[in-house]
């Protein structure tokens, strides 16, 4: 009985003195082994717990996503040496691992070179590839304890700045013997993935305390976190400064750090521990939020309309809504007739009234998207693409007329020509005949079923109806997500039109991934089969750019080309709505691209409410 009492007292004591925040997860992370996480097992849930454990040389600033030093002391110097390009990076001298060891150039050099070796020799796969591309990255070299030189074959913002220089750094002392041992086994990668890492020294702010499988994960704040107390200031003029009064570290860049401040953040962590609780369905997590068991819910899809409606009525729960970095789109198979005709694609794009769909049909739960760079990605988004999109701002009647005109321009005919008066379809079109005299029987639009995404399913049905009205025989086929993937990527390209979605990174090099003609092979990402030499040339220049302003200019041009050629018709996306309890936690900011879960809930900045 004494024992029980003691335990009870302990529980009570912990409850009173320590500041703990509880967060809800809808799925359990898989493993905290970073090799596994960035290898075959990338799940967003693992990422949420992993984020506060790891650190790289550079990272994105909060809110504005400026590219700022993290473990590095300054922005890199770039110079050409022979036919290689060398990034010289000075490291911070005030960083320690959670086991007390000092962080040094050895860790950086070992991590980068080892990852490259494992990729090249052993086929380490998955997301490691987005950090280290062996076609670009050559090697890392230690100059002194706090300086490294990183060699690349070509300069590239995508591969170097937003790639290798941002990769998580692992501790050499801990990992070197383990990796060496693994390389001697029959299956090195599996051995590495299988290592138990509960004792791994980390650079991040939160150490694993307990993982009760199926129920919760608890992490504790490090007292010796290197960034504690440091002040990050974002100025309106674009400048950024970091000052750490505890260690004396100072850095500023992107202009003079003066004038009006946009944001000032003092890094914590302010809470002692975080408990991630697993709930297996959304209703459970939301009831827990209402009851006060958790103060924030992680859900990459955001809250649904009904959930938000209900939470809006609950006292002490605040809803926040943010735009996301992604889009849902229709892709034309340009290897097939008639999707290869530009006017045909434009005609369909003209018919799709995004505003009507998002505000009326989807009841304002979605917002229209026009270009292949989401409008939420403010720095890279080209605001001109809206106007370039066919039918922009037109009434439904004008849209139909425009679509008919476009088809006529390209030489299409009908057995029964559609007739539009005002906004009404007076006569439905029937029997569309292609410019070469061939009758077009049926065009299949593959879209995910209502179970996977009711919004896309609904929109596909609307597209079907609008197209049929003017005689384009589109048939929406609502199928399993896997079936679409199989038809598009495995069979390969056995589709007319499909509808899916992308969730993107901040740096918009996906444009080159999706539309460069060299990426049109089987299983690769140019599923549309888009082939435009002018575009390819600009895309290559964009990928090779080492200057951000130049890259931005090129990206704008790429977006404009795509808005008219329309291999994709980008239609909409949903804002991500999140909810948290204001009586339990305070977030440092609430407006941020893709919501607070995109920054893992800002664990080093969140405070417990009084």
């Amino acid at each position: 009985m004494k024992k029980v009492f003691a335990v009870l007292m302990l529980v009570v004591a912990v409850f009173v003195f320590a500041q703990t925040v509880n967060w809800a997860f809808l799925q359990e992370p898989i493993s905290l082994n970073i090799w596994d996480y960035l290898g075959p097992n990338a799940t967003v849930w693992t990422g949420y717990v992993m984020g506060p454990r790891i650190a790289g040389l550079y990272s994105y600033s909060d809110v504005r996503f400026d590219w700022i030093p993290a473990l590095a002391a300054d922005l890199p110097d770039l110079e050409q040496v022979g036919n290689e390009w060398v990034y010289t990076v000075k490291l911070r001298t005030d960083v320690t691992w959670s086991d007390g060891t000092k962080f040094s150039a050895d860790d950086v050099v070992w991590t980068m070179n080892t990852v490259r070796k494992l990729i090249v020799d052993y086929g380490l796969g998955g997301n490691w590839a987005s950090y280290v591309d062996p076609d670009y990255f050559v090697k890392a070299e230690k100059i002194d304890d706090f300086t490294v030189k990183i060699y690349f074959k070509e300069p590239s913002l995508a591969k170097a700045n937003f790639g290798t220089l941002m990769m998580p750094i692992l501790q050499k002392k801990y990992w070197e013997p383990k990796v060496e041992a693994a390389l001697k086994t029959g299956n090195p990668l599996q051995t590495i993935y299988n290592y138990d890492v509960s004792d791994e020294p980390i650079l991040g702010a939160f150490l694993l305390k307990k993982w009760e499988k199926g129920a919760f994960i608890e992490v504790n704040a490090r007292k010796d976190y290197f960034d504690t107390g440091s002040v990050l200031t974002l100025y309106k003029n674009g400048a950024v400064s970091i000052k750490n009064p505890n260690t004396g570290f100072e850095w500023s860049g992107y202009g003079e750090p003066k004038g009006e401040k946009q944001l000032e953040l003092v890094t914590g962590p302010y809470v002692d521990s975080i408990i991630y609780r697993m709930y297996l369905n959304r209703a459970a997590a939301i009831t827990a939020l209402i009851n006060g068991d958790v103060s924030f819910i992680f859900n990459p899809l955001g809250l649904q309309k009904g959930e938000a409606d209900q939470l809006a009525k609950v006292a002490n729960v605040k809803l926040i809504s943010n735009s996301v970095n992604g889009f849902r789109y229709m892709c034309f198979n340009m290897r097939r007739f008639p999707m290869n005709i530009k006017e045909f694609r434009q005609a369909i794009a003209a018919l799709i009234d995004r505003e009507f769909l998002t505000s009326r049909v989807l009841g304002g739960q979605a917002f229209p998207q026009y270009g292949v760079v989401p409008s939420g990605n403010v720095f890279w988004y080209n605001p001109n693409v809206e106007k370039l999109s066919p039918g922009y701002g037109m009434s439904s009647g004008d849209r139909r007329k425009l679509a008919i005109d476009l088809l006529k321009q390209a030489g299409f005919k009908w057995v029964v020509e559609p007739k539009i008066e005002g906004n009404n379809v007076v006569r439905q079109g029937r029997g569309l005949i292609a410019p070469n005299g061939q009758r077009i029987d049926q065009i299949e639009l593959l879209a995910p079923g209502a179970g996977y995404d009711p919004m896309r399913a609904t929109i596909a049905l609307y597209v079907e109806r609008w197209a049929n009205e003017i005689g384009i025989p589109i048939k929406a086929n609502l199928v399993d997500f896997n079936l679409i993937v199989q038809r598009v990527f495995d069979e390969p390209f056995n589709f007319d039109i499909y509808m899916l979605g992308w969730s993107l990174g901040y740096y918009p090099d996906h444009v080159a991934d999706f539309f460069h003609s060299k990426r049109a092979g089987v299983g690769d990402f140019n599923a549309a089969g888009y082939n435009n030499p002018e575009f390819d040339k600009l895309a290559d220049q964009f990928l090779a750019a080492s200057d951000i302003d130049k890259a931005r200019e090129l990206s704008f041009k790429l977006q404009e080309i795509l808005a008219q050629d329309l291999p994709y018709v980008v239609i909409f996306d949903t804002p991500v709505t999140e909810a948290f309890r204001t009586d339990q936690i305070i977030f440092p900011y609430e407006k941020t691209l893709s919501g607070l879960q995109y920054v893992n809930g800002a664990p080093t900045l969140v405070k417990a409410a009084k």
Partner: protein
Amino acid sequence: MLRFLSKRVVQIVILLFIYVTIVFWLMEALPGSFLDKYLMNPKITPEIRENLKRQFGFDKPVLTRYLYYMKNFLVLDLGVSFSYFPKKVTSIIFERLPRTVFLFVTSTLVSYAFGYTLGKRSAWRRGKVIDQVTTFTGIVFWTIFLPLLAIFNIWLFGVILGILPLNQFIDPNLWRNVSFSAQDLFLKLLLNAFIFLIVFLTIMIISRRLKTINAKRILLYVSLIGTIIISISIWILSGRAIYAWDIIKHMVLPVFTLTLYSFAGSMLVMRDTMLDVIREDYITTAKAKGLPDKVVRDKHAARNALLPLMTNFVISLGFTISGGIITETMFSWPGLGRAYLEALSQQDTPLLIGLLVFTGVFVLIAHLVADILYAFLDPRIRY
């Protein structure tokens, strides 16, 4: 008996091999693969995907993989899961099994006990109000859409009345500072239940030797209550009683919901068998002897009607995965059914195959047990 058993076992083994083969090829035929999720990431080029394919063993022809699987199956190795790569399927099943078994055995037991009591009463009073009412309510609950019932119960008991804990299977606040895992406790609870079962069976055997009804009754009650008291005190002394209690508290709502949903099944079986038994001569004789109604019902009729219910019970235990898919999701109870749903959505074929094969083995064993039970309990059957 022995000959019958060995024949059954041979049959089961053959059946199992055919079943595993079908499951394997069925999963192979699934469109797409686990690697499709990398199609959502344009940074992962086709070459990298090929690389991953090799790591997962996809590069070998499917026949080789099948033979390899069968070879491993013989030594009870179900391969390596994709979504938990490189964790073994067996270890995932073992992690989730105690949770599922504990929840479903409990709820099946409760539901059968409930069904047994109601079934025997409604058969005895056939056509009367109690019969009509129980049949009606039973079937209405039986045909309620389970997710709706679960959601409603969570709302009513967890939110409105606030008397039962919501979701999850433990309370993290209680568990965050203990050194043992919930898994540990689940195993201990199962062990406790098993010991209880052994004690119960031993006592049943001993009590057969006793002469008077009173002696039987005293032995039964004393020893059962004794076992309960002893196990509770062991739990309390070990300091883990509050943790065990925490798990049990979290189990009340799912067990209640499942019972409500499924008691009609066992009730109707019991009712129909009872009706059959009632027509037997010995019941008429017993009645004619002037024995009290209740005695005839409970001692003569119900006991003989119990047999089909027992077999039914054993067989129904085999279907925990199917049953768990909805329940475990609705109540945040991460067990095998939930694992199946997740594996399916992620195209984790080894885990899917493993779970189905495991259920198959489980069902076949359950059938064997049912056969043996039948042979032991029904004096009319001789092998």
